[in-house]
């Protein structure tokens, strides 16, 4: 047993936790906090300087008021900015796990052994996750692919960090990005060398460990010339966290002829029926596509009390392509203000936006999107579809499309629809023998199909089930 434990524990060294001894830095945000975080993480000087610059800029900034969301003021002085990763108590068997959580796993169709991993139950020897992960690690290393924690990358690959960090999302980009830049805890780092096609989906799933995810995550993905990578973030299993404020930053760099596909399933705790206790998710995600490069964002957002998130593409190089496929679901008192920005700079750049909002209960769901065609972006092309589906009559759907065109050769198409889940559709499907739940599920999945098609297969199946669970009991 001890051997097994040692093995599983050691496995988490695979870039998942850094060497930290002490526990917490006192609450409050000041320059000293930033210095102490950097010191705790044993960071090189350049990293500390970078954080401090961000902190100074942050101090000059104000929290944005324009998102269509409403939440009580956040007291930034009342937050711990650094705490040593806590180990959740290990459980002996699934019998000790909250039955409600198990029921959800069951509905999501998560295999038993994965359930144990997610619920932090000690895994038995049959499920040799260690060897699975080791195999992955070896295979990736052979190709020169770097996939590790951000902290690890700061130590082992400082040249890449120096070169790319903040090039897509500068420290002073926005209030929460600046805060993240100053105090970020950890995150993921990926580098795909020139011409390499990453042979597997890189998934944060392989990075699930028994410590808490930081509330200020920082992710940087670099696809060198001609390379390809597909990255999966999050998982469908419900995620709870005692930290209420989450402000992550994700930067993607897709160099000439490279392709990055970034898929997210976000299922943070949305709070109870009245919205109490849910997570505030204020995220900045952006990618730069160089010549002939491509970036695809696919997201399925079902969690969080308040979401504020606009995965964007800067189409800098000629012939570059940006895509955004999104399903955002809100139920009960959830609020989401989400969308994308497509900034066309290079010639012959193309972008596609498919956004599917679903609102139920008393929730509010807003799409906010910007399509900007720069002066030099000859023959740019954008196609946008923004659909909203309402379930019940207490919820809201809003669309805020912004369009800035500085070049007359641009072709921009925009379609938007709002529909209500039809009593007629429900009655029809139930008359064919489907339960109300299955009927809703079928209608919603049909509605989201274009987005699910973009997700890797297993992820898509889980996402479909997740949607059904999120919307359970929201009609009738």
């Amino acid at each position: 047993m001890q051997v097994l434990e040692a093995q599983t524990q050691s496995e988490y060294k695979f870039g998942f936790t850094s060497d930290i001894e002490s526990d917490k830095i006192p609450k409050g945000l000041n320059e000293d906090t930033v210095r102490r975080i950097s010191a705790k993480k044993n960071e090189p000087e350049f990293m500390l300087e970078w954080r401090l610059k961000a902190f100074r800029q942050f101090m000059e900034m104000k929290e944005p008021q324009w998102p269509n969301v409403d939440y009580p003021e956040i007291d930034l002085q009342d937050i711990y900015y650094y705490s040593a990763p806590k180990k959740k108590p290990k459980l002996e068997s699934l019998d000790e796990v909250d039955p409600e959580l198990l029921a959800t796993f069951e509905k999501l169709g998560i295999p038993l052994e994965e359930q144990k991993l997610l619920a932090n139950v000690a895994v038995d020897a049959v499920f040799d996750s260690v060897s699975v992960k080791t195999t992955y690690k070896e295979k990736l290393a052979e190709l020169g692919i770097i996939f590790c924690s951000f902290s690890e990358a700061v130590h082992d690959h400082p040249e890449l960090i120096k070169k790319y960090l903040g090039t897509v999302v500068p420290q002073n980009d926005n209030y929460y990005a600046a805060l993240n830049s100053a105090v970020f805890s950890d995150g993921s780092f990926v580098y795909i060398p020139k011409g390499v096609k990453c042979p597997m989906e890189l998934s944060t799933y392989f990075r699930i460990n028994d410590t808490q995810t930081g509330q200020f995550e920082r992710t940087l993905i670099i696809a060198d010339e001609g390379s390809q990578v597909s990255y999966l973030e999050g998982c469908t299993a419900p995620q709870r966290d005692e930290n209420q404020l989450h402000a992550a930053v994700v930067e993607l760099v897709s160099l000439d002829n490279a392709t990055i596909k970034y898929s997210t399933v976000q299922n943070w705790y949305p709070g109870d029926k009245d919205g109490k206790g849910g997570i505030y998710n204020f995220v900045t995600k952006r990618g730069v596509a160089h010549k002939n490069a491509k970036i695809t964002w696919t997201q399925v957002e079902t969690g969080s009390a308040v979401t504020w998130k606009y995965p964007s593409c800067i189409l800098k190089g000629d012939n570059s392509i940006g895509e955004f496929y999104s399903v955002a679901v809100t139920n009960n008192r959830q609020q989401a203000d989400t969308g994308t920005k497509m900034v066309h700079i290079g010639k012959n750049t193309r972008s596609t936006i498919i956004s599917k909002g679903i609102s139920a209960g008393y929730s509010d769901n807003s799409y906010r999107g910007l399509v900007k065609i720069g002066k030099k972006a000859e023959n740019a092309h954008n196609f946008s579809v923004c659909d909203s589906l309402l379930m019940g009559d207490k919820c809201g759907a809003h669309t805020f499309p912004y369009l800035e065109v500085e070049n007359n050769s641009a072709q921009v198409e925009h379609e938007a629809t709002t529909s209500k889940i039809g009593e007629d559709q429900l009655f029809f499907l139930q008359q064919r023998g489907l339960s109300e739940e299955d009927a809703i599920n079928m209608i919603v999945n049909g509605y989201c199909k274009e987005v699910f098609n973009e997700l890797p297969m297993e992820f898509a199946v889980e996402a479909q089930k997740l949607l059904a669970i999120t919307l359970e009991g929201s009609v009738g």
Partner: protein
Amino acid sequence: MLSIKNLKVAVEDQPILKGINLDIKPGEVHAIMGPNGSGKSTLANVLAGREEYEVTEGSIEYLGQDLLDLEVDERAQAGVFMAFQYPVEIPGVNTATFLKQVIGSIREARGEEELSAPDMLKLIREKAKMVGVDQSFLRRSLNEGFSGGEKKRNEMLQMALLEPKLAILDETDSGLDIDALRIVSDAVNQMRAKDRSFIIVTHYQRLLNYITPDHVHVIYQGRIVKSGDKNLALELEDKGYDWIKEEVETVA
């Protein structure tokens, strides 16, 4: 099979059916006719369990069960099928996927064995051929962009696949050309069986040229005012509904 007693139904407090009595035996085909607004579609929808229709009085017994006690999906599982006057479109849901899920859930509810994927596909293809549904339809989103006739044919395909005990056709013939009409009636005729009954709700007699009903009932102002055999339908075609209206009004 089905026994309706003194059925009274209101929609938004407005009485629509005012005391319907109807007995249907296994294997029988009943045609329900009547002028627009008489309540014939209401009867079909009440049998299927549509929520907006409030049963204020009376009872419906179906195969020894109180039908009004069952939810919409439970009725379907118990063998009640309604072919819709306006089949709905469900964007993004592939017709074949829909059929597979529906067959699967009905079979499960009926305690029948699960069909293997190839068997399922074989069954769907076979029945599609029977009702003249082209294979290419199966790959399209359910009813999306289908013509009126295609939608109705799709309804017949579902009926053939779900093998109901009581099939209700709610003005299935409306808006159909002669070819489509023939396909619908062929499907019904092929499916006529000793233990399967049909209720055919229609405004026009022409469908009954192809499907010979055992009984014909005329609904007017929420009541069955006349019942007879197939000759009643022919008489209606000849004379229209006015003489029935007059008769009713004279009695009143």
